[in-house]
């Protein structure tokens, strides 16, 4: 096989574009290398788990799971409880994870069922589901917590007596996992346990693809009809993939928030799906294909851009907001680009199969 340089580059156009953006912005921003490394490590620890949760639905052919927000909400609710009960430190994190499981499963099953009813437009549906459940979440957290769901501490409630404050502090949980074992390499703090957790999840995903269920998901993702004919329960398999993704997203959110140290009760989750998806796509994934490698590359490139863009923007234009808007634009732009490329490919493929049958005969 001849190595096709153009194809190689075309397939990786998004990561290459980002490398160029970063290469231009880093010197402009004037950040020190150790600062950048520290930041990147923090971001990897913070976001990788969340992004990894996106892989399974992609494998099952359900596209980018905008519904991962559901898992994030489940994680937040669990954390609000642990915070209220004053369960601190690592036990707090573990408790929050366990508590989030039933909520995630419930939401994931709901999401999966709805997605099965809207085949062919899973993404827009999962996107709207995330808004819809966000409404429910607000109903629960803003109105029901207090009068209906007992909240012990006044301090996390709004002064009016019901609902949770805009910010819930996780001070005593903050970075409890990151700080458990951490080593310092050339001025860069490496939280060993967090990395171990992320690696374990990667291993889990690799193991999962080797199971029967993983194999079934891949098959369902590629051709639902054939899979059904072979006796696979397609609907159930698809729901399972969404449930797994939601549960993992819940865990991811808890790890994310323990690193951040506080919950922005009404906004932490709303953008998380978007940024995770953008990061994954920056890593070279597409709507129907993504790997663990894409996740890591994506986290690094996307967040590098995120760190340096505002400062670089300020240097270039003299306006600090430009860089802020630029990175938002890039996030949306990348997703748009990936969606357009995916849909065009799908459109072309239909034509290709037509021509294919012609050539074969």
């Amino acid at each position: 096989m001849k190595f096709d340089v153009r194809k190689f580059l075309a397939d990786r156009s998004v990561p290459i574009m980002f490398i160029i953006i970063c290469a231009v912005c880093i010197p402009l921003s004037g950040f020190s290398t150790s600062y950048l490394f520290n930041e990147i490590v923090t971001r990897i620890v913070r976001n990788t788990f969340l992004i990894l949760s996106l892989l399974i639905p992609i494998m099952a052919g359900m596209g980018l799971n905008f519904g991962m927000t559901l898992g994030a909400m489940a994680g937040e609710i669990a954390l609000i409880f642990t915070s209220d009960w004053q369960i601190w430190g690592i036990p707090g994190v573990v408790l929050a994870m366990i508590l989030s499981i039933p909520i995630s499963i419930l939401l994931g099953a709901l999401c999966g069922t709805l997605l099965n009813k809207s085949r062919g437009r899973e993404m827009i549906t999962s996107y709207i589901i995330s808004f819809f459940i966000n409404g429910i979440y607000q109903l629960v957290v803003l109105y029901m917590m207090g009068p209906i769901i007992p909240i012990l501490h006044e301090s996390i409630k709004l002064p009016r007596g019901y609902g949770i404050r805009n910010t819930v502090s996780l001070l005593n949980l903050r970075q409890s996992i990151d700080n458990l074992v951490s080593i310092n390499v050339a001025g860069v703090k490496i939280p060993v346990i967090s990395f171990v957790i992320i690696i374990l999840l990667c291993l889990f995903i690799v193991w999962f693809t080797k199971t029967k269920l993983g194999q079934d998901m891949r098959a369902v993702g590629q051709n639902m009809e054939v899979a059904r004919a072979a006796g696979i329960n397609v609907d159930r398999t698809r729901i399972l993939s969404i449930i797994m993704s939601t549960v993992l997203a819940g865990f991811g959110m808890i790890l994310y928030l323990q690193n951040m140290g506080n919950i922005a009760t009404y906004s932490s989750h709303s953008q998380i799906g978007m940024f995770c998806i953008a990061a994954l796509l920056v890593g070279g994934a597409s709507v129907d294909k993504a790997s663990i490698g894409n996740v890591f590359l994506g986290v690094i490139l996307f967040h590098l851009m995120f760190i340096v863009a505002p400062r670089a923007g300020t240097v270039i234009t003299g306006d600090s907001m430009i860089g802020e808007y630029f990175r938002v634009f890039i996030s949306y732009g990348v997703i748009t680009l990936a969606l357009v490329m995916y849909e065009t490919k799908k459109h072309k493929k239909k034509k290709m199969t037509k021509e294919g049958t012609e050539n074969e005969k």
Partner: protein
Amino acid sequence: MKNIKKSYYGTAVLHDINMELSEGEIIGLVGENGAGKSTLMNILFGDEVIASTGGYEGDIFINGEKAQINSSFDALNYGIGMVHQEFSLIPGFTATENILFNREPTKKSLVSSAFGDRLDTLDRKKMKEIADDAIDKVGIKIDDDMLVQSMPVGHKQFTEIAREISKEKLKVLILDEPTAVLTEKEAETMLKSIKNLASRGIAIIFISHRLNEIMDICNKVTVIRDGVVVKTSDIDKITVDEITKYMIGREVDTKHREPRNVEGKDVIMSIKNLYVDMPGENVRDFSIDVYDGEILGIGGLAGQGKLGIPNGIMGLYDAEGDVSYKNEKINISEPMSSLKKDIAFVSEDRRGVGLLLDESLEWNISFLTMQVKDKFLKKILGKLMSFRSNEEIKEVTDHYIEALNIKCTSSKQKARELSGGNQQKVCLAKAFAMQPKFLFVSEPTRGIDVGAKALVLDALKGYNEKYGTTIVMVSSEIEELRQICDRIAIVSDGKVAGIYKATEPVEKFGALMIGAKAA
């Protein structure tokens, strides 16, 4: 198999089919399209369609025991395997993965005992062993690690067969046109491996249109026509011609119209070197002249390209070639080009192409004419704008409802709610409303009942006689063509195999269909 019956929505498709099959035997199953072969095989294989439309009647005995096949699982348990015409393979999987798809050998782990078998890990080594073994049995080299999507088409077919063979219980293998997509060489290998399989004691049902293949490898042949087994014979006691005759059927005693002699008339449409890229109905190098005022029939087996001809000329599928109408060229990539020249088309795909199912009959009948001829519009605001003229539309719709005897509650009824026959009449009305000078009609009687059939054919004939409209009618039912056409062209492999007068005996057409060259 005894007395198998099956009906779809009250229309009987199979009546009292009886077949017998013994170990190691290869039986050829032939019949025209729509004769009921696929339905029969679907019953055997427990296809979902059968169960969801009310199951089947009759009994199937396997090794002397009565078998009840309700799903493809049952079929698998009874040792029946099937290779479909369309590949049912997962493109991104390797040959091995496809061969063992959903039957993968697995290893247990602690997790799987808690969460169920679906979390067992796959036993790749064992998978490879089984797959290699199956591939060996098929007798051809396939790379077991190759992704199916990068395989040549023949290998895909072999992969499918290997998948069936790898099933331990396999006793009966159904092959639905396994050679249709293969090159000659591959087909040869295929036939060899089929024989090889039979010698291992697997009974094989071999469906094919290529009669010489059947003669080649089968022990017996069964001919099905109109849902009835018309002939079962040992292969050495029957000839290709006889099979053909049984397939096409007896001379039906229907009123044939006297074909007019059209050869001398002006050529109204001349088609030269037409190529159409329509999936499953490819046309290659098709040329014909159509004479003014005639009814030309185009027949042929499914998949040979007859449907591609009108669809290509009317711009619905990518096409190349020279088509001229009254000595003017038609741009065949642009539907409007032919429509503007008063050429209309009644599609074979009623629900997909022919109708706006969710709109009223008025819309359905008037839309084409409105778009093409700017009719049914009224000027308002001093000719600045033109609106739909609901009165005119209603008038024309009511006219055709009466003329074609369309059964409906009103002209406002939705097309979806009509029966198949009446929907077809609406399609005709749509074309007639345009007052075409030239009409393509594709499979006008497909899936409609006998009464409606006669009415549709009469309407076409009447229209031709009354207005002198040239009609090109494409149909798989040769009898139907012979009823109303002047000439009939048979298409085979995308080309004209021959053109005969409609009064020629039916065997001559049959011979053309299965690939014999015109005398």
